[in-house]
């Protein structure tokens, strides 16, 4: 079972990101699960959401305490919340930042750190600082956990009924992150 924990702030689409991962994995033929760390979600408050992927039905409902992948949507969370909780040496960390790896201020030991300037891509393509989908392009690129096709389809499913250009822009942003 592969477990993902996403950290972000209320209003940044943290829950949607977890759901997109689960939908994408499901589209790829896996079993998956996504749920938020249910809270009173005020804009700007630190929040978490979780996703699990496996090849057999997922039964557990506990929060993700030992993530295999950790996504940080907002770099201001580094040093403010316990991102390191349960991380192991193979945990993949993906951070949205314009800074290089060694200047992020990450003080826990991880071998696999990926930095993506998702804010820049989001501002460029979406016209606002909503990075949740963009980072998923990086996740798809790093390992075979979810495919770009599965993710693209997931965006179409999740945003069905919304403005068509929004779907197109999100797919464009994800693809850009995937290719960068």
């Amino acid at each position, binding site marked *: 079972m592969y477990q993902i924990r996403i950290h972000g702030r209320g209003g940044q689409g943290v829950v949607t990101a977890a*759901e997109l991962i*689960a*939908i994408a994995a*499901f589209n790829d033929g896996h*079993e*998956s*699960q*996504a*749920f*938020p760390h*249910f809270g*009173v979600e005020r804009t700007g408050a630190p929040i978490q959401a979780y996703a699990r992927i496996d090849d057999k*039905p*997922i*039964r*557990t*409902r*506990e*929060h993700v*305490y030992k993530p295999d992948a950790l996504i940080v949507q907002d770099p201001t969370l580094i040093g403010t919340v316990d991102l390191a909780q349960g991380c192991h040496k193979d945990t993949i960390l993906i951070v949205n930042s314009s800074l290089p790896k060694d200047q992020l201020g990450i003080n826990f030991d991880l071998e696999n750190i990926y930095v993506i300037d998702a804010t820049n891509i989001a501002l460029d393509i979406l016209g606002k600082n909503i990075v949740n989908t963009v980072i998923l392009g990086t996740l798809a690129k790093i390992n075979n956990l979810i495919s770009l096709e599965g993710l693209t389809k997931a965006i179409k499913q999740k945003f069905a009924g919304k403005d068509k250009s929004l779907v197109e822009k999100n797919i464009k942003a994800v693809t850009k992150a995937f290719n960068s």
Partner: protein
Amino acid sequence: MRQILEGSQAIAQTIKNINPAVISAYPITPQTHIVEDLAKFKADDKAKYTYVRAESEFAAASIVAGSSATGVRVYTATSSQGILLMTEVLYNIAGMRLPVVLTCANRGVSAPITIWNDHQDAMSIRDAGWIILFAENHQEAVEQHLLAYKVSEQVGLPVMVNVDGFVLTHTYEGVSVPSTNQVKNYLPDYKPAKGAFLDTDNPASFGAFAAPAYYMEIREELHDALVDSQKVLKREYENLKQAIPEVIKQSEKKAQVNNALIEYYGPKNPTTVLVAMGSLVGTVKDAVDEIENNAGLKAKLNINSVGVLKIKTFRPFPEKEVLKIIQKAKFVAVLEKAVSLGATDGPLALDMKATAKNETLAKVQSFIVGLGGKDITKKMIDKILVEIKKPGDKMKFINK
């Protein structure tokens, strides 16, 4: 077709395909996407039902009670404070033998204010005369709603399907929702019997005055009908398997026993049985498998053989089915997300102790977990497996 959906969406789609004539709900917190989606289906002209937005849960329950009394299929959903406000009407619905189906998206109750999951709300309806089902996952929730209508309309009793608030309602996972045609295969249009509804050609009265000469007999009849409904629940679960295999085939493959009332997962004649209801069962199964696959942990916790007993039907309480599973066990740990404040044990544990008494030598102990949304971890389950072997059987709150 199997899709990935939020629990609420899966239930809403199932209800849409079941096609009740009247749906009524109060739309404000504590409410779920279930009734939001059902309202949207109606607004988008994808559903035929009459959707009545009520001014409170009391009104919503009254509207479905009245509609059901006219002889049509009805639906409502609520949770926590909402179900407490409905309570008076819910007792009436059972007393009037109306086949109402209600989804309770389980949440804790105030005070202090909570919006998070536990089973305290459902327990407030425990003695009301409803058939009370608990679902472990989305697929089981879909199954149980189909079963609810089928049984309810046969036996003239209301059914409450419990799905853990947030833990199921707001979680995405794979699920098969049967199509309208598949539903029709199993659940024909509702045609109430003569005299079982308000009909000017066959006048009848509902919930009439009963003097002491009759009241007790009528209540005893209600109790007997509820107890007898176990047979119908079991039969209709088998019929559901035949009619719509897609919805059942994903249920726990390794289960030794699986019917409408219980599921048992584990070895034959286990030393220890963990008993739970709802979504918690999934975590318990994973914890037990983890121990089974980890010799070190198994030795450390001093575990012989552990099985997991899921209570799917809480009322009527399936004591015979339960007894078969725990008969030879030494330890029975009952994990539950509700308290009967001031009682010796949790509500489910009280039933378990009564079932075990004079029939087994097993020690039955009550463990309260996950109140108000506290996450229930596998570590807690490991801890309970150690606690259950200690002397004494006093109820314990497991906080971490």
